């Protein structure tokens, strides 16, 4: 072992201090104008500015200390661990998995099933609303959207920046058809999916010849077109006012969640009147939809069409020379991805009771895509983890009341949502360039299954 790899050596510490100070200086330069100075309007409605040296100091100190710790302690530690692993000859693929890792999915599923009753027990029906609705349902909607987009981006490799369009189609299909035709949620859910799938094919046709950046731009435009149509076609969509009073879903038409109705669900079961029961019901609906998405994705991956998607992502020309019809392969990817977007959309509409074009802006597409990329393209588990962290994390920001004690009463942590989102993306991409779960499960075996670790492929080559 050489000196340089041991912590505490003077050379390393000096380097860490140097880099820490350097990071602090850069942070000072970067945040001086953004954070150090704030503009506001005074009583005469004139724009004036004041300084926020305290906040700036916190930013600088965090940057400097983080860099110091990274260089001085974390990096040497990681290097040592890697070296030790290489020495003992353990490759990542041959690593034995612990109990928690092998049974991770089962445990996660049981935890999700028990989540609503436990939160009711802990916080009462009314108190559980926050946990079931704000956290549970919100996260699961994004899990479903990201899993749907994963089929298009992660498996088929078609970069789609307008995925939110299908979400919008699903939401408006349910909202309009439920209001005008009075059809039930359970009838309109598949219908919204089919309509969204049709739009997927409509988008798919003109972009068949496009790939990569060009495809991304066209899909981006498609997403905007749908949104602008929703805003401007006021006769049907009521424009920016949106559609309100969208009917609630019922328990398969047997019980209803409308307070006045004869078969009101809580009354039938002798429960207190509360909107919490509806949210719990919705939680299980979206959970079931998510499981359906996962099941279909897993099954499709093992079928010829799923294999064709993955091959298409890798090399389109090779695909054709192997007899794969790339046209139908691409269109089915768009259609199936869009269908799940449509399901999620109609669920969103019935949950909110209100839809407006504002819910379907480009930022939504970007967030869904970010979740797919962060989680690791193609990996269902990774994407679910990313959705929990990203969506749950931003929801958690609303709860951080104690930060007001640190930063003053004007501090609203939600406003830093996008900043933190960006920061998290950079950190993840630095340390896990393939996303949380970079390995993919092969679909061909002769004898035993073996996950192929991401470390066996060069970065940027997959």
């Amino acid at each position: 072992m050489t000196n340089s790899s041991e912590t505490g050596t003077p050379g390393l510490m000096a380097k860490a201090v140097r880099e820490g100070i350097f990071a602090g200086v850069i942070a000072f330069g970067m945040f001086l104008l953004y954070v150090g100075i704030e503009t506001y309007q005074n009583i005469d409605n004139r724009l004036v500015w004041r300084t926020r040296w305290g906040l700036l100091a916190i930013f600088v100190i965090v940057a400097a200390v983080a860099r110091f710790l990274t260089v001085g302690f974390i990096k040497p530690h990681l290097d040592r661990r890697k070296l030790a692993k290489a020495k003992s000859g353990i490759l990542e693929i041959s690593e034995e998995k612990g109990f928690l890792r092998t049974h991770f999915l089962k445990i996660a599923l049981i935890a999700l099933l028990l989540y609503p009753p436990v939160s009711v027990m802990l916080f009462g029906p009314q108190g559980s609303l926050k946990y079931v609705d704000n956290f549970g349902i919100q996260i699961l909607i994004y899990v479903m959207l990201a899993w749907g987009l994963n089929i298009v981006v992660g498996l088929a490799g078609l970069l789609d920046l307008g995925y939110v369009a299908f979400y919008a189609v699903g939401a408006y299909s349910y909202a309009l058809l439920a209001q005008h035709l009075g059809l039930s949620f359970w009838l309109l859910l598949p219908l919204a999916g089919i309509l969204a799938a049709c739009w997927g094919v409509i988008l798919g046709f003109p972009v068949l010849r496009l790939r990569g950046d060009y495809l991304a731009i066209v899909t981006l435009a498609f997403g905007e077109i749908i949104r602008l149509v929703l805003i401007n076609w006021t006769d049907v969509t009521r424009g920016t006012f949106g559609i309100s009073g969208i009917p609630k879903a019922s328990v398969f038409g047997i019980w209803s969640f409308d307070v006045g109705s004869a078969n009101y669900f809580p009354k039938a079961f002798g429960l207190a009147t509360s909107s919490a029961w509806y949210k719990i019901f919705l939680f299980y609906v979206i959970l079931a939809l998510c499981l359906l998405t996962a099941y279909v994705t897993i099954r499709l991956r093992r079928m010829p069409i799923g294999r064709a998607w993955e091959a298409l992502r890798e090399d389109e020309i090779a695909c054709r020379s192997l007899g794969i019809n790339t046209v139908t392969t691409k269109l089915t990817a768009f259609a199936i991805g869009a269908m799940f977007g449509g399901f999620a959309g109609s669920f969103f509409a019935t949950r909110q009771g209100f839809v407006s074009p504002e819910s379907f802006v480009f930022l939504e597409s970007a967030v869904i895509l970010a979740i797919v990329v962060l989680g690791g393209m193609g990996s269902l588990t990774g994407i679910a983890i990313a959705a929990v962290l990203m969506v749950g994390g931003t929801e958690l920001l609303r709860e951080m009341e104690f930060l007001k004690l640190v930063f003053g009463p004007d501090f609203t942590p939600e406003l830093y949502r996008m900043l933190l989102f960006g920061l998290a993306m950079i950190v993840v991409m630095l340390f896990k360039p393939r996303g949380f779960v970079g390995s993919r499960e092969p679909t061909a075996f002769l004898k035993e299954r073996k996950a192929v670790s991401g470390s066996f492929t060069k970065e940027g080559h997959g």
Partner: protein
Amino acid sequence: MAGETLLKVQGVETYYGNIRALAGVDVEVNKGEIVSLIGANGAGKSTLMMTICGSPQARNGQVVFDGEDITRLPTHLIARRRIAQSPEGRRIFPRMTVLENLQMGAGLDNLKHFKEDVEKIFALFPRLKERQSQRGGTLSGGEQQMLSIGRALMARPKLLLLDEPSLGLAPLIVKGIFEAIRKLNQEEGLTVFLVEQNAFAALKLSDRAYVMVNGKVTMSGSGRELLANPEVRAAYLEGGRH
């Protein structure tokens, strides 16, 4: 040797935009033959191979395979007529494992003969067996070439098209790959159409060969004849490798 004609290319002209890459090419491949096409860079060898596969399609002329005109068919339908290709640059699927790559090749029969055929490929290229659960992109160049040929063979082709299998490989590995091609031809009667820059190795392997210059076939004959031909020797075999 002289079986019936399997592939017949007649007066094929192919254009890239307004540039004529093939200026009326006639080539024939009979069942059970190894036929090679040699020529300098930019002569149109790869273009001919791609034209047979329908991408780009020939503007004039005709490609007839097994008695059927395939000139205007899309690429994937041509592949389904059992013309398998190991394309230039190999084009394996880098993120998929070796076994999955082979699986993609067997898609035409819906994996009916998958296990049996995989064993055959592994017997032909034992290196692939060792690497079966490794990702394609992590293989060496020679192994990738073996995988590319193996993937093409998984389709149980009537005709195997090989585009520069020796490109960028060490001589010893080239020898091994050419040996495998010869074995396939002799033991299974596989028909092979080969495009090569490595004229010496290609001519030694082939029953017949064509020489291509500027989008035209200028010479043809048995491999042995062309090897002895002074013009061919001067242009492709001696005085450095052109």
